[in-house]
């Protein structure tokens, strides 16, 4: 093999490796879901999430997923990464469009870590009629079809059972196109303190990764679906 051919082969091989490495960096390391940034007003940061039985991705459309509402555009973004200012109170609203799934440990039925130890709850039926707003400290996921998922930040001792729509309303009426804007759903509101800056992982404790090992695979272990990070900015 002549010298020019050998040099060319070497350069081609080097270029192939470089392109492969760049693809890995861009696609797998930098190519994750976006981070939605929230700002505080008067020491309070308003964050709105929704959880759906499906999502709007082309690759895993049947995975359950959370969405985050962009505070500036009010558009729903398919991500589980968001940032808030540290040392503020986060006032969070979660819209629960998914049906019920039993908790693996019914201890997670208990609301923990919120200001006042309770959450505000109302259920919207398939005709758009809401139940009265009430504050609850436990949503018993084993007493019936009541809990769809949870929102938990373990390092902040924050554990929230996310209510599901009424069982009868849910039958054949659940929102089927994400992000959901109609259909029976729950509305949950609660507040918690962000004590310091840092990255706080959050997750769902319902084994809702259907078809995966013990229900904890797939969306349960994939950032952008049922788990993510809350970054508290200094």
């Amino acid at each position: 093999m002549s010298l020019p051919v050998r040099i060319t082969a070497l350069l081609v091989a080097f270029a192939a490796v470089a392109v492969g490495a760049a693809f890995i960096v861009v696609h797998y390391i930098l190519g994750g879901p976006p981070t939605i940034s929230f700002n505080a007003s008067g020491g309070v940061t308003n964050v709105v999430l929704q959880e759906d039985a499906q999502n709007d991705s082309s690759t895993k459309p049947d995975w359950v997923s959370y969405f985050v509402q962009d505070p500036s555009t009010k558009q729903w973004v398919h991500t589980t990464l968001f940032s808030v200012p540290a040392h503020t109170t986060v006032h969070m609203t979660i819209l629960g469009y998914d049906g019920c799934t039993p908790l693996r440990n019914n201890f997670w039925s208990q609301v923990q870590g919120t200001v006042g130890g309770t959450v505000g709850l109302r259920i919207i039926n398939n005709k758009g009629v809401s139940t009265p707003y009430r504050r609850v400290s436990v949503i018993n996921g084993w007493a019936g079809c009541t809990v769809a998922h949870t929102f938990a930040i373990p390092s902040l001792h924050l554990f929230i059972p996310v209510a599901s729509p009424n069982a009868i309303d849910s039958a054949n009426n659940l929102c089927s196109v994400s992000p959901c804007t109609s259909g029976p759903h729950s509305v949950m509101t609660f507040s918690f303190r962000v004590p310091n800056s840092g990255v706080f992982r959050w997750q769902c404790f319902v084994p809702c990764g259907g078809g995966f090992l013990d229900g904890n695979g797939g969306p349960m272990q994939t950032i952008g679906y049922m788990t993510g990070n809350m970054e508290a900015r200094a």
Partner: protein
Amino acid sequence: MATPEAPASSPAAEPRHGLRIFLIWLPLAVIADLLIWFAWYPHMPPGRMTSSASHQQFDIAFLAVVAAPVLLFVWTYAAYALLNWRHREGDEEDGPPIHGNAKIQATWIGVTAVIVLGLFVFGTVELIVPAGAGAGEGPAPIWQPSTSNRLQVQVIGQQWAFTYRYPQFGGMETTQLVLPNNATVEFHVTSLDVIHSFWAYRLGVKADANPGVDNIAFTTTKQMGSFTVRCNELCGLWHGAMFNAGLVLSPAAFRAWASALRFKEANNGVLSALPPYATTYDPTVIPQLGAAIVKIDQITGGAGYYYPPQDPVTP
């Protein structure tokens, strides 16, 4: 095989190398052991927060005291050999023939046998006396504390958090492990999904959390303070974040904490919502509903099931 020729003249009397090595090694070994025992031992991990932690600290210190003279002997011998028996410029002579040394061989075998058998006895005693040395002994522990006055704490692993139940306090459950000081604790470690490992490093306790298995470990608290509980078995995406802080409180403070938590969970309905206390739990069964439930009300949620039929593994 060539027979070495006899030297033409008698060699100069060799110094007593063995005695020299011994005299160099002995003070080094004594100094090292004194430093280990009096300076290092009190600061060795995992500390003295519990009886099992104290025993582990003692074990590490004792083994270090045994190992240090052996290590120093090897180093001393190697250094002595390098300095005294190295090849010198212009020296083409063969080494002296060696046909064995029964005294050295007997000493070597005797000392190593004593060390190995001694460590076997020591290890066995240190496993039995502290009732399993803080490790999980399975559902039927062979070695148990002498006292029957034990605080039972159930450790439940789940992707990705530990929770703790106290059967002697109505089965209340919490996300923070709180223990009273000067109490013998009986941990019942289990899991609701995959294999985890309950590792309270400063307590000197480590036990696998297997689904469907009641893994029992014992310890006795000796100091108040905080400690960290970690999962020590790779268990998924957030394994590295599966840790939380625990506390050893005074007995009075523990009683106050437990009473308050039990009162709260009885009032808000959590206690009645929890399954009856059991040493293990079947995640496919919801006891309050009285059946092996895989689907509730025919409503499908994300999966709609506890464990879907196509789930490849159910504990």
